[in-house]
Structure formats: C-alpha cells, structure tokens
C-alpha cells in the first residue's frame, strides 16, 4: 500500500516565480490494484509518480509506504525501499547501454543488502525467457527494438520481486501494437503475479486497461 496525503510540490523557476506542480494530492493505492494516473501533459502526473516512487520529495505533505512515513527515511533507506519494494519502468526505457541485456536486468541485485532467496542470474534468465528475450540476453540495448527494450526494462523491474511497479508513460515511445503488448504484460503481472501496478499515461485507451483511473488536471485530482 502506498498513500499520498495532501501532497504539494513546488518548483522554483527563478527568484520570483515558482511553478506549483501538485496542489494537495491525496490518493491511496491498495495492494493488488492496477491503477492508471492520467491527464493532459503538464498536469503533474509524472511528478506524482516520482513522489510515489520515492525518487523525489514533496514540498509539503505525507508519503506513506507500507506503514512508514517516507519523510522519516534517510537517503540510504529510501534507496533500499526503491530497491526492494518498487520496480520502475520509464518512457525512455533507461537501460545502461554498455551492459548486456542480462546484466541490465541484474543491476538492482548489485545494490541490494537483502539476502536473496533465489539465484538472481537464474531468475533473470527466467524473466528474459518469459518475455521471449533469451536469444538477446548477451546483446546490448542499442541492438534491439524499442518494444524489446521495454520488455527488458520490465524484467529489470521484476528482478527484486517487488510489491509495486511504477510505469511512467511506458508506451510513449512505442507504436500502438507494441504498446498494446506491453499493457497486456502489465495486466498479466497484475492478475497472475499479484503485483500492484501504477501506470502514468496521457493516452485514454491505455488508461482504460487499468482497473481504476485517477484523472488529474492542473496539479489536482478531479476524478478517481
């Protein structure tokens, strides 16, 4: 469970002007949900996801992850939460180009302090097999298609067996058909693997695939 409570986020543009990206957001994502946060560009949905993913801190308000308030967590603990509980999928895929596909999938396991109950390499290989990427495991990111890169990113988000996957415009750089496959994958992960999924998107047909839609406009939620 992740909860945002009266979250405000302000960006200082210059000494006099500031931009208010979030104006008192309150929302709750329960375990096992598949939620889409949607709205036009600039509505604050990405900022909202970054705060949900503990990548950024709000100017004001409470973020509750599990039972703890994120404000009280040190930088190292935030890193640990991101590592163990949250899987990220980005619009730009954000794979590390000099690492092979399998090495990319394994990056989160480098940084964990948790004793893993499974062999990460075997599990990584299994995830790649599941997503039809076994043949590419020794390839490099710039040698494979966008759809394949996004599936690698999803495999990477799953390697730590997280509770949540946060995806920021995961289909934004893909064609409709490939985007559709990615969304099917999220649905499968949600129903079969019981992973909580939050997708941020501006496309209404993508958002429609989620169980619940949170609609945002001008830094506020107007429908959830």
């Amino acid at each position, binding site marked *: 469970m992740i909860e945002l409570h009266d979250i405000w986020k302000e960006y200082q543009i210059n000494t006099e002007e500031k931009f208010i990206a979030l104006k008192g957001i309150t929302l709750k994502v329960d375990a096992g949900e598949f939620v889409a946060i949607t709205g036009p560009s600039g509505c604050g949905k990405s900022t909202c996801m970054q705060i949900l993913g503990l990548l950024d801190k709000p100017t004001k308000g409470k973020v509750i992850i599990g039972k703890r308030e994120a404000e009280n967590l040190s930088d190292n603990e935030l890193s640990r939460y*991101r590592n163990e509980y949250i899987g990220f999928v980005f619009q730009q895929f954000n794979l590390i180009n000099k690492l092979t596909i399998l090495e990319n999938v394994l990056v989160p396991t480098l*940084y964990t302090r948790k004793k893993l109950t499974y062999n990460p390499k075997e599990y990584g290989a299994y995830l790649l097999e599941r997503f039809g990427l076994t043949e590419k495991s020794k390839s490099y990111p710039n040698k494979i298609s966008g759809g394949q890169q996004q599936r690698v990113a999803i495999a990477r988000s799953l390697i730590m067996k997280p509770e949540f996957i946060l995806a920021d415009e995961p289909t934004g750089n893909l064609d409709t058909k490939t985007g559709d496959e990615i969304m099917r994958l999220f649905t499968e992960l949600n129903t079969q693997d019981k992973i909580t999924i939050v997708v941020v998107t501006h496309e209404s047909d993508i958002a429609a695939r989620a169980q619940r839609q949170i609609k945002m406009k001008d830094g506020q939620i107007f429908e959830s």
Partner: protein
Amino acid sequence: MYYLLTIFLSGLEDFSRNKVRTLLTSLGILIGVLSVVLIIAFGLGLKKSINDQFESLGSGQLILFPGQVLSNGRFKGGGGNQAVTRFSEKDIENLKRLKELKYAIPSVQRSTTVIANGKTEPVDMVMSAADVFVVRNFGLEMGRFFTQQDDQRRAKVAVLGYEIARKLFDEPGNALGKKIKIEQQTLTVIGTVKKVGSGGFGGPDYDNNITIPFRTGYIYNPDKKFSAAVLVVRDPTKLEAAKTAITQTLERDYKKDDFSIVELSQIQGAVTSIFGILSSVLTGIAAISLIVGGVGIMNIMYVSVSERIKEIGVRRALGARRADILWQFLIEAVTLSLFGGLLGISLAFLIVAGVQSFFPAYINVQSVALALGVSSLIGVIFGVFPARKASLLSPIEAIRYE
C-alpha cells in the same frame, strides 16, 4: 565482493571503449611514476657504484691533502688551498719511516692530452709510485706495471688504463711497446690495466688514466711537489694512532692547518650525501609530474561523470545508495591511475634492464611501493571530487538530464 568485482569490470570495460582517452589520461601518471622510479633507481646505482669504488680501495686508507679540506666532517667548498702547501719527496720519505704505515704513496694528477697512433685524446695523467697499483687493487691486462727501479731511473714508461688504451690502439693488447707523446715527451707503454669499470659519475675514472712513475713525472712537475698522498695503515684497527703519528711527523715542517688527513670513509660519506641530496631533489621534481597526471585524471573523471549523469540517476532509482555511486567512480579513478602506474613501473624495469650493462642502476621494492602507493592515492584524491559530485545528484534530476 561480487558488487565490487562487477563495478571494477564495468570500469575496465569503459576504458576499453575509450582506449585512446584512457591511454592519454594514464600517460600523465605513467610519466610521473616512470621518472620517480628511474631517478630512484639511478640514484641507487650511483650510490652502489661509488661504494663499490671505495670498497675496491680497501680499508685502512688515509689520504693526505694540503690545506683544510674538511670542516666538521663535510667537504669545504673550493677544495682547500692547494697553492699554499704541497708535499715534497722528503715529506713522503719521513712518512714512510713511520712504523704505523705500510705505504706512503705520493700522487699528483694532471689533465692533459696524449698523442699516439695518429690519435689525440684528453687524459688524466697520474704521477705516482709503483705501490699505487697494489694499493688500488689494479689487475694487469698486458705487459707489466712500472717498478721502483723504473722510478729511480726516471724511465720514460707509462701504464695505460683499459679505456684509454682501447681508444688509442683499438685493442688494449696492441698498446704494448708503443710510443705515446704527452706534452712533447715520448713515453713507452709497458703495460695496460684490466678494466676497473668505475668512473663516469663522481669517482675517479681509472680506466681513462695514464700512470707514470712520479720521478719521471718531474719533467711535467718541475717543482717536485705532490698534491696528495695515499697512506695505507699497517693495522686498520689502529687508524687513530696512525693519524696521530702522521700529524706529529708533518707538524715538524708544517702548521696544523696546512694539511688534512682524510679517511676514505669520510670521503665516501661526503660523496654519498651529496648524491643523496641531489637524487631527492630530482625525485621531488619528478613528483610534480605525478600531480600534473593526477589533475588529468580528475579532468577525465569530471567528463566521465557528466557523460553518465543519466546512468547515475538510473542506478540510483534502482536502489544504488550514494556510497555505491561514490565507490564506482572511485574504483574507476584508482584503476585508471594504477594502470598508468603499473605501465610506468614496467617501462622503468625495461629501461633499467637496458642500461644495466654499463650502469649498475637497480629498482628496489620501496620505490615500486612508493610509486604504486602514490599513483593509487592520486586516483583516490583526484577521483573523490567528481565521484562526490556524481553521488550528490538527486535521482530524478539525474534521470531527466540530457
């Protein structure tokens, strides 16, 4: 452990991707380490060669100089006032009579030129007694050394050092019986000395000397005075007693300040300390190039951090802590400078092996440890600033960075 290994390997991979850049960056460290190790190696070689020369002269030797050569055990500038007092044949005879002394050998040296076999060579001519060959441990290559009789007869004979014989007659063996001309006087070569193999740096270059009997030398030295005498003590453990006896003998004719008796070990110590100072100054100068190399590494690490800000952000999002990022860049910087350091040391080994045939330079463990320690320290020091910059970025700012 696995994590450090992975980071290390990923750093290496980054280098192989930027071969030219890596090599150029390491070049700074390479040159610095190379010069430090080489200067230390040559300094050690010099010290060894000086010590070897002194040791070949044997113990229990004293050298008599005119004037005050040493003050407080160190050499005075200017080399004493040789113009005031020079020793006569009578002084030497007086010293020879002392029971404490085994040998008292007069010596005067003259830098001149020798003409022979159609060639002209600069040479140091030593005018001394027959015993000098024994005292200096010279071996005979060809012919014979001159004798006391040669000296008494003022025979126009000369004994050639190995190198000068080779220079004049191509083969030292060819010199035997040949005539050489020094300052209009013709001398006959009666022997050549085996290669001594010293000289060049500081010590006397015996291989390039021509030795003639001192009385024959009166042609060149008409006032019959000597600028030094080599005194060999009968019992090396009674050096002080011998010095007292010598002083008493000389004080009959000279004032106390007119002469000095120097132990070989004093000269050795003074020469070694001069070269010690020289080589530490040179090492210090070479160390500056290590710092310059370090700045090069810092520059490259800054570029590397800026190029990879997005990657840093991604790693942070996936759970890397600040310390993890710091470590990654630090290991890369240290690897880079150690790489340069190791290349520098290898090159130094090659160069030292190359010069070994004519100069006894050698690399000791300390200088290798120093060079490696300094180069990895440079990696840490100059890597830590860029690495800190990288680790302090907030993950989301870093990911958004283009």
